[in-house]
């Protein structure tokens, strides 16, 4: 017997809050940092957000049906108790960490996720800059498997929405650091600024959704450094505000590479890390960090010799 329960659409309820928070942040930017917003960039981010909600609505039924199919074969039934909601949220956040980490380390998933990173700005509109192609990339697979354990899909969708709404407020430069205990446990503006940075020391760090503990646990945590000015965006900045190119540029690049690569390397262009190339002519984040470290070490040696 499957309980007849529907998910709560938290994200739709949060939209008025999103708009009010952006207006607040723009008012802050006007006084303190006018370059924190750029109207054309804001348009691109919000158009991506709008398109993402449409794409999500069109495919939600399929994803939910897939989760329900798993739920039919569950090994237990988790009740709708308060502790189950907390357990579900923590488990979903753990899944988010791995989905997100994979989204940065496998080009197939990166082609979808790169949309969220392609702005050179970091403000609340960037939070809404979401993918249109998450369904095509199949990244939802990371989030629905707990239905097999007995978590109802309605619960999974609801806590996933809470997680998404939580992540909205951390996309800002208007907030410095939170109290130490909070920074230790939760993802914060400071931690997530690092995640959106292209500075070599920050590349591919802080994949957390709501709880930063996963990064600490799996050794991908990097604190924000006071002396390091953050640069946002992607390694090869887009250089355009075009909405469609922002959505599809990495898919186009990946498929072009796939088409022209020698046969034995074709698959690697889909499953290796972004920036990988069979002739080593491009830079991955690991190579960029390695080169940066060598320079830092060289500079340190020069200072010692002086």
């Amino acid at each position, binding site marked *: 017997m499957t309980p007849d329960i529907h998910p709560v659409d938290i994200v739709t309820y949060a939209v008025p809050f999103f708009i009010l928070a952006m207006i607040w942040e723009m008012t802050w930017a*006007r006084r303190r940092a006018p*370059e924190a917003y750029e109207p054309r960039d804001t*348009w691109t981010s*919000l158009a991506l957000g709008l398109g993402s909600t449409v794409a999500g609505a069109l495919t939600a039924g399929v994803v939910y049906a897939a989760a329900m199919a798993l739920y039919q074969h569950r090994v237990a039934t988790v009740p709708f108790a308060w502790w189950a909601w907390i357990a579900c949220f923590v488990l979903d956040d753990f899944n988010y960490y791995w989905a997100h980490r994979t989204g940065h380390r496998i080009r197939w998933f990166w082609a979808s996720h790169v949309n969220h990173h392609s702005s*050179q700005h970091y403000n609340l509109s960037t939070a809404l800059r979401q993918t249109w192609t998450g369904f095509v990339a199949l990244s939802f697979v990371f989030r629905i498997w707990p239905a097999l354990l007995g978590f109802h899909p309605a619960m999974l969708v609801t806590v996933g929405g809470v997680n998404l709404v939580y992540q909205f407020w951390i996309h800002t430069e208007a907030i410095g650091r939170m109290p130490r205990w909070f920074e230790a446990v939760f993802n914060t503006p400071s931690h997530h600024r690092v995640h959106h940075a292209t500075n*070599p020391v920050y590349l591919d760090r802080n994949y957390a959704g709501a709880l930063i503990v996963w990064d600490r646990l799996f050794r991908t945590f990097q604190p924000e450094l006071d002396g390091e000015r953050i640069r946002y965006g992607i390694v090869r900045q*887009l*250089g355009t505000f075009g909405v469609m190119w922002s959505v599809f540029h990495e898919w186009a690049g990946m498929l072009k590479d796939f088409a022209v690569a020698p046969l034995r390397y074709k698959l690697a262009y889909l499953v290796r890390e972004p920036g990988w190339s069979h002739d080593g002519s491009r830079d991955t984040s690991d190579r960029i960090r390695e080169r940066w470290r060598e320079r830092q070490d060289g500079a340190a040696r020069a200072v010692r010799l002086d």
Partner: protein
Amino acid sequence: MKAVQALLAQPGVLLVLKTLASLVGVLLVVQLARWMNLGGDVRIRDEDHAGALADEAMCGFVPVAVGLDKARIGALVRDAQGRVMLIRRHGSHFAARLLENHAGVRLDQHFLTVATGDSRFGTVTLNLGPEAQAWAASLRRLEG
């Protein structure tokens, strides 16, 4: 009232209405950003700034020559390996591309027009003053 309820019950109608409402919200926020004059007017301050931008675009790119646009909205930088990078303003930030060949390079007195091969990045015309000719010659050395 019943007619409205019947309309909303049609598949897709609610999604279309929600999308249109969201679009209005999006346009209002973007317009607000314009009214508030957000975005700033960034320029390349000097050669050191151009060098820092080049290093940001490609970690380890150390310029040995810099050609600054007179309005400081773009620059050409060359490193010791002969690689040339085009930097241009993009909103309130900068974006850069390594130039791979000299196709699309046009010289008109002090103005040098450079196409990068990336049509979305666009073609950039720099006012390099008397240095434009030397930069044009250096770009011609890139593979055709």
